[in-house]
């Protein structure tokens, strides 16, 4: 863990509010990128991500107890997600679900789930892993996922693959499940948990 971050964490868990407030600047500077990247997984909207993160940092300032004894960056991200981000994510989605048909439990599982496979690996590791897994797919499956990740609509992907939108959705669904199996295998092989 970065020395500045470790120092900021130490100050952040101090008892007086002013020291904690002063520690927020180095803490935010050191953690903004990984925290907002993680939130983006669940929200996909930069403005929402910033609003939620603003509250998360204020919550941390108010009650930093969970951040005592942090060992490394992953431990920090896991703790912040489980104790601070999830609460705020649930609030966002409770607002969104006023008119929706999902049950509160399903909504929670969809929007602020438990940490799953590889949820704490860095952006770079994740990209490398996905690249490796995509390489193992059939050409058509890989193409569909790559085009989706380039930001293309399903209709545009269907045009590229010369098929229907329905067939593209089915192809993506099956391929995503295939990717999950590969990811499970990867986690098993590297001694991770399912």
């Amino acid at each position, binding site marked *: 863990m970065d020395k500045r971050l470790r120092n900021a964490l130490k100050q952040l868990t101090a008892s007086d509010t002013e020291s904690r*407030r002063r520690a927020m600047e180095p803490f935010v500077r050191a953690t903004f990128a990984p925290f907002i990247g993680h939130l983006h997984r669940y929200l996909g909207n*930069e403005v929402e991500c*910033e609003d939620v993160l603003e509250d998360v940092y204020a919550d941390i300032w108010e009650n930093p107890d969970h951040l005592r004894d942090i060992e490394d960056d992953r431990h920090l991200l896991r703790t912040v997600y489980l104790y601070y981000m999830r609460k705020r994510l649930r609030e966002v989605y409770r607002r969104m679900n006023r008119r929706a048909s999902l049950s509160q439990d399903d909504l929670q599982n969809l929007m602020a789930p438990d940490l799953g496979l*590889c949820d704490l690996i860095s952006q770079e590791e994740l990209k490398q892993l996905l690249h490796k897994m995509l390489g193992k797919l059939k050409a058509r499956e890989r193409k569909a996922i790559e085009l989706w990740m380039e930001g293309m609509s399903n209709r545009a992907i269907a045009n590229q693959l010369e098929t229907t939108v329905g067939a593209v*959705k089915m192809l993506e669904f099956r391929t995503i499940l295939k990717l999950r199996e590969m990811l499970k295998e990867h986690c098993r092989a590297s001694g991770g948990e399912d």
Partner: protein
Amino acid sequence: MMNADREIQELLADYASSLRDGCLPTFLKSLTRDEARRISESRDFWDATEIVRLMNSAGFGDKVMTPDVGLFISRVDAGIASRIKKAQASTRSPSRSHVNLQ
């Protein structure tokens, strides 16, 4: 626009697109009761959403970079200042009401 009575693969595709495009409320509002039940009962759907989130993060997580973290820090500090003010106001208010009663 999204169809009514979508199959599970269509629901996943629509969830993935709305997450990628940052418009999840549209997806949530579009769900009918039957579709919500279908989602609830599908293990495959839940498994797939995990991968969709990772794909979204790998493909688009980098774009969410605020150019000026300093500005964001001042927002955080303003939020903290407002919480301090609120806390002070709530501790002061009982004595003020006491004064008013006299």
